[in-house]
């Protein structure tokens, strides 16, 4: 009996001691049914793709590329519309057209935009953190692909943040304050870098991505090797590094992987896009801009002025406008037909081949190589149902005007023309279609929320 008691005591004591060791595991294994722990999501390769998909989907949000960084706010700033821009239709777009970026509504928009962009960046940074921890898990070149895509997207988002929230290099110095370039996930605030530093970091990320991504694996609905090169070209031009801009533009053009359109069956020319974002919400989101809610549009007078006047023509494929409600060529024709039918075009161009031609042409003009510049523009013109220019080499000044007009024509409703104005630091008084006045304190710089 005495022995039995001793045994029981010893067993009980031992149990108490040992059970605490397994306690920790028991506590750590607490299930988390409705949310997915990041250790679970990154436990498989597929999880990294899911997180990247998540970022693409976040980029498709209404205040980002789903609407306002493309057909919405940025296109209003980019002078793609002149119809129904008045306070009664939509105050946000009216203030936008006035370039009144200090307006509380636009400040709110800027804050939302800023938050969502950095939220997407945080998602990328967490992926980049975890990809290093689990490097040995990956098969094939998945590690390179996921990391390259994440870095490229991080650069893409930061570069657009820089172009939105900081002054253009053309309007000041490269040491002017830019934005925080966030490369880690955490609670500490990243300090604001200057323009040059931000662009260098973008270049750094893009060049790493370039080295990681496979040139032959080019799905254009994901950011890819060629889009990275195009982005470098865009970035170098913004930085006014013409040599590199031209180099990367030619690399894309000469790769012959992408060809310019031969017909007008798709006016969004999606096959020319080097990186297009799948935006499923596009339909309803575009509708809120062109449809019954706001009715933004481009008047027929302005259409003629842009597409026909000068070296243009009425048969320019891009001069196809439809009635936003029916999509047909009767009724008011002010919605670019490339968006019709609304929602059917799920990939939205984020960077296009034609921009490479324009960048190369612009660099050529600056190198006083008018012949090359004209040839480059002509190569696009023939694929837009236009005749070549009457001269084989236009004069430098008229080339500059032509390139500016091309940005407006080509990127109608895509938001890129705003970045063109900003890069060129075009005075507000000389913005096209000045039926809409600008406010006295008009600026190209969005108000940072922090």
């Amino acid at each position, binding site marked *: 009996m*005495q022995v039995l008691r001793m045994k029981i005591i010893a067993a009980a*004591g031992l149990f*108490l001691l040992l059970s605490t060791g397994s*306690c*920790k595991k028991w506590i750590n294994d607490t299930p988390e*049914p409705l949310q997915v722990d990041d250790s679970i999501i990154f436990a498989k390769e597929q999880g990294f*793709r899911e997180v990247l998909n998540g970022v693409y989907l*976040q980029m498709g949000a209404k205040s980002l590329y789903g609407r306002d960084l493309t057909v919405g706010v940025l296109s209003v700033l980019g002078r793609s519309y002149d119809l129904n821009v008045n306070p009664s239709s939509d105050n946000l777009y009216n203030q936008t057209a006035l370039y009144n970026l200090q307006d509380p509504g636009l400040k709110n928009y800027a804050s939302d935009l800023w938050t969502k962009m950095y939220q997407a960046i945080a998602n990328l940074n967490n992926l980049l953190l975890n990809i290093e921890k689990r490097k040995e898990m990956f098969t094939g070149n998945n590690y390179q692909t996921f990391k390259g895509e994440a870095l490229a997207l991080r650069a893409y988002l930061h570069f657009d943040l820089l172009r939105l929230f900081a002054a253009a290099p053309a309007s000041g110095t490269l040491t002017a304050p830019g934005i925080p370039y966030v490369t880690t996930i955490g609670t500490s605030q990243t300090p604001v870098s200057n323009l040059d530093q931000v662009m260098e970091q973008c270049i750094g990320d893009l060049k790493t991505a370039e080295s990681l991504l496979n040139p032959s694996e080019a799905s254009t*609905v994901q950011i890819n090797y060629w889009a990275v090169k195009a982005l470098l070209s865009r970035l170098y031009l913004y930085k006014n590094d013409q040599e590199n801009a031209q180099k990367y533009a030619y690399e894309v053009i000469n790769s012959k992987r992408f060809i310019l359109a031969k017909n007008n069956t798709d006016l969004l020319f999606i096959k020319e896009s080097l990186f297009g974002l799948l935006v499923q919400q596009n339909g309803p989101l575009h509708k809120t801009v062109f449809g019954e809610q706001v009715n933004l549009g481009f008047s027929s007078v302005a259409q003629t002025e842009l597409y026909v006047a000068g070296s243009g023509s009425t048969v320019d494929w891009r001069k196809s406008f439809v009635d936003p409600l029916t999509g047909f060529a009767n009724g008011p024709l002010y919605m670019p037909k490339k968006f019709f039918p609304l929602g059917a075009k799920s990939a939205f161009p984020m960077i296009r081949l034609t921009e490479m031609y324009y960048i190369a042409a612009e660099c050529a003009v600056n190198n006083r190589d008018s012949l090359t510049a004209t040839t480059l523009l002509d190569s696009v013109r023939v694929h837009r149902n236009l005749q070549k220019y009457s001269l084989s080499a236009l004069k430098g000044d008229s080339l500059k005007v032509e390139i500016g007009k091309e940005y407006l024509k080509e990127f109608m409703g895509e938001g890129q023309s705003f970045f063109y104005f900003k890069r060129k630091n075009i005075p507000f008084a000389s913005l096209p279609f000045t039926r809409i006045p600008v406010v006295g304190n008009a600026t190209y710089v969005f108000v940072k929320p922090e």
Partner: protein
Amino acid sequence: MKLKVFGLFTLVSIYLSPQTSFAQKQKPKSAKKIVDTAYQNQEVILSVKDMDNLTLLDSVRAVIGIQSKYTYGGIAIFENIGKDSVVLLSKPGYYGLVKKLDKGTISVFLQKSTIPTDGSVVSTGLYNRPGTLFSGAAVTVSGEDLRKVNVNNLFDALKYYVPALVVSRDNRNGGNPNALPTISLRGASTFPYAAAVSFSGTSKSGVQQNPSSGDFVASNIFSAGSPVILMDGNQVSLQTALDFDISRVHSVTVLKDASATASYGMRGGNGVLLIQTIKPQRGLLNVGITSELQIASADISSYKVLNAKEKLDIENRAGLYAGNLNSLYEQRYNQAHHKGVNTNWLELPLRKGIGMRHSLNLSGGNDDMVYNVTAGYNDKQGSMKGSYRKTTELGAYFGARFKSFSFNNQFSYLSANAENSAYGSYNTYVKQNPYWSPYDAETGKFQKILGSDTVGGVISNYMNPAYNTTLATTDAAKYSRIANVTNMNLVLTNNLQLNGIASLSNQSDEFDYFLPPNHTTFANVPIDSLFTRGLYKYTSNSFFNVEAGLRLQYHNKFGLHEVFGTAGQTFIQTSSESTGISVSGFNVDRLADMAFGNGYSTLKPAAGKIVTRYASSYANFVYSYAGRYQLDLSGANDLHSAIAQNTSAKFWAVGASWNVHEESFLQDTKWINRLKLRGSIGQTGNQYFLSYLNRTTYNYYTNLQYIALGAGTTGTLGRALGAYLTGYGNSKLQSPQTFKQNIGLDISLFNRWSLSFDLYQQKTSKLVFPEVLAASTGLSKFPPYQNAGSLEDRGAEFNVMGVLYKSPGNNLSWSINLNGLWNKDKVTELAPYLLALNAERDAKGDQTRLQSQYLKGYSPTSIWAVPSLGIDPVSGKEIFMKKDGSSTTIWDVNDKVLAGDLSPALQGSFGTDLSFKQFSAGIYFSYQLGASVYNQTLVDRIENADLLYNVDRRAYQQRWTQPNGTDFLYKPLSPNGLLSDPTYVTTRMVEKDNRLQCASIMFGYALPKTLAKRINAKNLSLKCILNNAFELGGAEMERGIYYPFQRYYTFSLNANF
């Protein structure tokens, strides 16, 4: 390092136990004698032992016939005992026992009546210690005492005896039988409105959205200052404790300081309430019956509204009928003056709620086996028509002993069925104009539209809220809960015991909320949306809790040294699930069924799942020297799924006490029965914050994939799944900590007076708040939570009880009781989140009501208001004082100053009991001093009132009318004060709220034993209690906005057979 305190302790006890048991063995247990029972003059040797730990019991009173003796060394010897005699055994703290004498040597076991309620033993739920050797601050109140004061609400009853327990009832929900009070012990341990933090939208994942009412994790997150409630050692939610049959409560112990709560580790920070239920009595069959009749009647004395003529008059004076509205005035004048319509809307939704409660208890057993079966039914009817809460309870207890092993199993079933009044909120009746009649003139039934007017071509209809009662309006909740607790006890040696506890509880709840299509809510739905009217919300949830524990208990005495030790471990897992759907588009008014709906009103169902796990290792060690000096050490080492992984939260306490009355110099001072000094210091924790804050979490897009339109569903769909961050974990999150200090004094004098006094200080720090982050971190929308902010409470507690007169002859006694809690809370550190909250409240808060501000050095319940210099008699404008002392008529949020505190400085109770012969009576009061209140009635119902509806009487006479008048107290009369000149938070509306409430008046009568015997009853008593009889003092404001406060009349009959 991982060697736990108790681990060492176990080894020590293993070493000690054989030695001590050996020592015990040497002693002869009892004199063995074989007596021939045939002889009349026989000797009987009684040996009495404790049923649980088999120790011999001293001082047990044994009565055989006319002989009465006390056991010494566990033995009592009687001589000259007749055959077939019985022995009656009794000892305080044990169940009495009657035993037939059938042989010469009898071994009897007495069972502890759980914890004795006289304070001789303190049970912390994890271990029991003799009261005299306990160094912590704890108080035990017996079930009888509780039931004397209040049989409707356990916590209202407990509050009377324990001033440290603050039970506050929301002024909005009043006496609603389905509303929960908030409870706290010894001041604030968290910031008020912390629940709002949980709902900040930043992390919806960490808290259950529609928790089961039995989900104690969620209920403690929503009311984060609430102490932990344990019922028979098992944690329960406040709602479960309130629904529990009060007549089955044996006692409630309130654990307050560090020494008493440190063993609870992460659960002890807010204090612990232990509810012990009545355990079965031994005997053949004991039957206990309680039957009650309860009447709830609304107390609307605080409501003073205008009658029809006055209302019409004030409208006219305010210029409501200016312009071309004279015809409307004529029409209403006709109603009020000629037709004599003067509806008393205040009474319309009210009634006398007549409910009842029955409780039945059958128990029995012998030394080796006990059982009981209980059943209870409580039908609480509220004072608003159709509001009730019905609970049904069944329980079965079985206990048995086999040699040194004993176990008991307690099964209980509890179900509730509750409904809120179809009349809706009480305030919708208070505001109706008395010149409107709720009844249709022709049919006499409730009409839908009370009146309408046309201003500027727009027709406004005034809806009759009572009309909704004619439809199938539903707001109901029900649940059923099953719980099972198994306790096992193995006596290893005389000094060492091993206990095991395993319990589980499962509760499922359902909520049904239905607004029929013709409900007044949908009155303004346009004709083309006709089929969207009606709303049905259905929520179903469940809660499952498993708990297991094991502990070793040690007790030994070596001469003057006495040692107690306990070490154990507790594991708790809770799982909570919830699903809610919402359906709209109904055509049928009479049928409250989801099936008649058109479609979902929300895109997807709301679902939630939360699992928490908790493992706690604890130990307590008490050393006493000669019963005079005690040292009490406790510690806990906790792991919890909500805090940083692989780190444990450690808690400790050191207590000491000195029984001065045991000292030799006081031995001769007979009038001092007890004089004890005690003190403790230590750290406890809190686990009531959101779950999963320590994890970085993702969610999947459920309505999107990264896929081209028309790409088909094969192959690509799974690959295109998108995940996004929803929470960024703080991997270093710690448990909030409460550092507690306590000094106490217990005195008993002349066997009649007892006094206890406690001084305490508690500092809660490392509270859990979301971080405030820059948007560029990308985490600002789902910030990680951090440990920040701290609060400090200081206070004193006192309790005096005295018997003024006592005469055992005719059972006359008169006693009094006075207790109080003086408490001051102070914010000692602010979290960045709170600073942001302050700023947001200043910028966006609704300034017509109080906006709390948290400032370092001030109470978290401070009232901040702009100082008012009164109303200018000339202009009728309010004049404010700016920070620089200048006066202005412009209200500015930055001019706010401290204008009082919502929490009272001193609160408590006093009362007196009188008993004479078979009669007893008592009257009990509660009081509060030093509290202020923001008189929202003056704001909402006078100055900001909309005269389209009825207003407070004071608006009629006391508003400014002409320049330089003198008889005004409030701002000028206007059709809608909120629109013309809103009154924002001003010191003018801050009033003192010193109150005295008669909590209870009780009369009782117990049938004399001789009479009771005639009906074969052991005892039979009748009792009549009136709760919330009246209230004196306090601000003159409307009390019970959505539901009036209630008086309760209870008539009860209690009999035991």
